[in-house]
């Protein structure tokens, strides 16, 4: 009985959380321009989206491309920078370690608006023209701390003798790094990469302040501009539905793989 009530509570909350997403999904199957009105079942929005023939020009397609390029670039750099730094931080002691860990936590505590405004002022101050590069730099800034925090715990689980053993057996430091250290850190790096990628995809405020005036739009800024104009591009509905289904499938796969490998440490996202 207690278990039933507990489960009922969880599922009621989940029903609330998923209501808006279900709403998007339902209205992706109608052609009506206005979100929330139904003009009969139709798959045309999916067809438009997949053929790139989106109403209102190719703004949405460009925004999707920009979002993916920025997210990929930022999360690759953040993963490399974060992993290298985590190894460095792990080997630091005392005050230095505390300081860099504190600095690392600032971008995570700072609200997006503050991160955005502060980086905007930096680029203005340095007379750095804003566009693609500044958005990617800004995303690296808020992504890297999460990579550092995903890799650090793996380092403390690591047996330091394995790396030394590789060196003793004649591996060069770079070989030992590539063949011994990196493979053992891989799961932490992957978690960091996925976190970075999803945060970059979802970011609005930081992009908004650092994209400059060259007309660079990501999915978030595109949706914002669209909503301000009054009237979302209808193809956003099937797009969000498809994204959701892809994530559902990917997480499902990760979850079954993880439960198969029966690792003691649970997934961290």
């Amino acid at each position, binding site marked *: 009985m207690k278990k039933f009530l507990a489960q009922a509570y969880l599922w009621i909350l989940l029903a609330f*959380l998923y209501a*808006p997403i279900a709403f998007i999904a339902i209205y992706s199957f109608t052609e009506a321009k206005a979100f929330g009105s139904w003009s009969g079942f139709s798959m045309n929005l999916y067809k438009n989206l997949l053929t790139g023939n989106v109403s209102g020009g190719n703004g949405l397609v460009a925004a999707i491309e920009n979002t993916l390029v920025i997210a990929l670039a930022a999360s690759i750099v953040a993963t490399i920078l974060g992993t290298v730094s985590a190894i460095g931080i792990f080997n630091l002691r005392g005050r230095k370690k505390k300081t860099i860990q504190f600095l690392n936590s600032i971008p995570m505590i700072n609200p997006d608006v503050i991160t955005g405004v502060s980086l905007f002022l930096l680029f203005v101050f340095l007379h750095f023209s804003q566009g693609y590069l500044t958005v990617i730099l800004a995303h690296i800034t808020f992504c890297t701390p999460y990579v550092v925090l995903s890799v650090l715990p793996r380092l403390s689980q690591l047996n330091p003798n394995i790396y030394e053993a590789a060196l003793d057996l004649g591996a060069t430091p770079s070989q030992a790094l590539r063949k011994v250290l990196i493979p053992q850190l891989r799961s932490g790096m992957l978690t960091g990469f996925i976190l970075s990628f*999803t945060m970059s995809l979802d970011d609005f*405020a930081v992009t908004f302040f650092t994209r400059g005036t060259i007309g660079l739009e990501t999915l978030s800024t595109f949706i914002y501009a669209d*909503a301000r104009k009054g009237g979302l591009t209808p193809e956003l509905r099937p797009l969000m539905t498809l994204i959701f289904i892809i*994530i559902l499938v990917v997480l499902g796969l990760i979850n079954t793989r993880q439960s198969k490998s029966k690792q003691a440490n649970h997934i961290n*996202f």
Partner: protein
Amino acid sequence: MNKRSSWALPYLIFLVLFVVLPLLLIALYAIRDGSGGFTLSNLTRFFTDGDALSTFAVSIEVAIENTLICLLLGYPAAWILANKDLNKSAVTAILFILPMWINALMRTLATAELFNSLGFTLGKGTLIFGMVYDYLPFMIYPIYNVLLKMDKSYGEAAADLGATPSEVFRKVTLPLSKPGIFSGILMVFMPTVSTFAISEFLTNNKIKLFGTIIQENINSSMWNYGAALSLIMLVIIGLTTIILGGDEREVEGGTL
């Protein structure tokens, strides 16, 4: 001393350039006037700017309400999720964070549209509801993480020594889950105060939150006043963080 500690150096330089310097620039711009001279008028202006002051008050009020509701709804959920007797599968826990992968603006617009079609007038009520939608996972997850890692034998020991289940909860579980609660509050309260766009969408432009005022000033090239408002925001962040004792370990508990 291991020389691999020097690997942290590039990141240290990066952090100084992209985190420390930008924050110092907020302070610098806040105390300068348009022509670059020193002034305190940007900061004093806030305290005489009725619009900004009332927005600030509304933001704090909405953030407190949002945080409290998230905590009241989220704690039981996190507790159930972490309790092996009540919830066996990790899938339910994943379901709670899954909505975060859908663009937050899009989810917010859908929420507003959903309210519209159900016949609710957009305003304060829908704002709080929508905010809870957006931030509940950020409250549940850190608490869930802490509860999951908690050593269950403390509770068992308390029960063996004669504590009732409610005493075990109040005197053992709740105090031990404090770090999770604090980092949950940190992850809900500050972002709510500073949010922009979301509040306008959920209230049909009727209610602005503090982040919007900052954005409006920056976007209309009032950089100095925008920086001053950001500085005020930063001071509040600093205070909340100190009060909640949020150091890097607790933030780690909240890693998504």
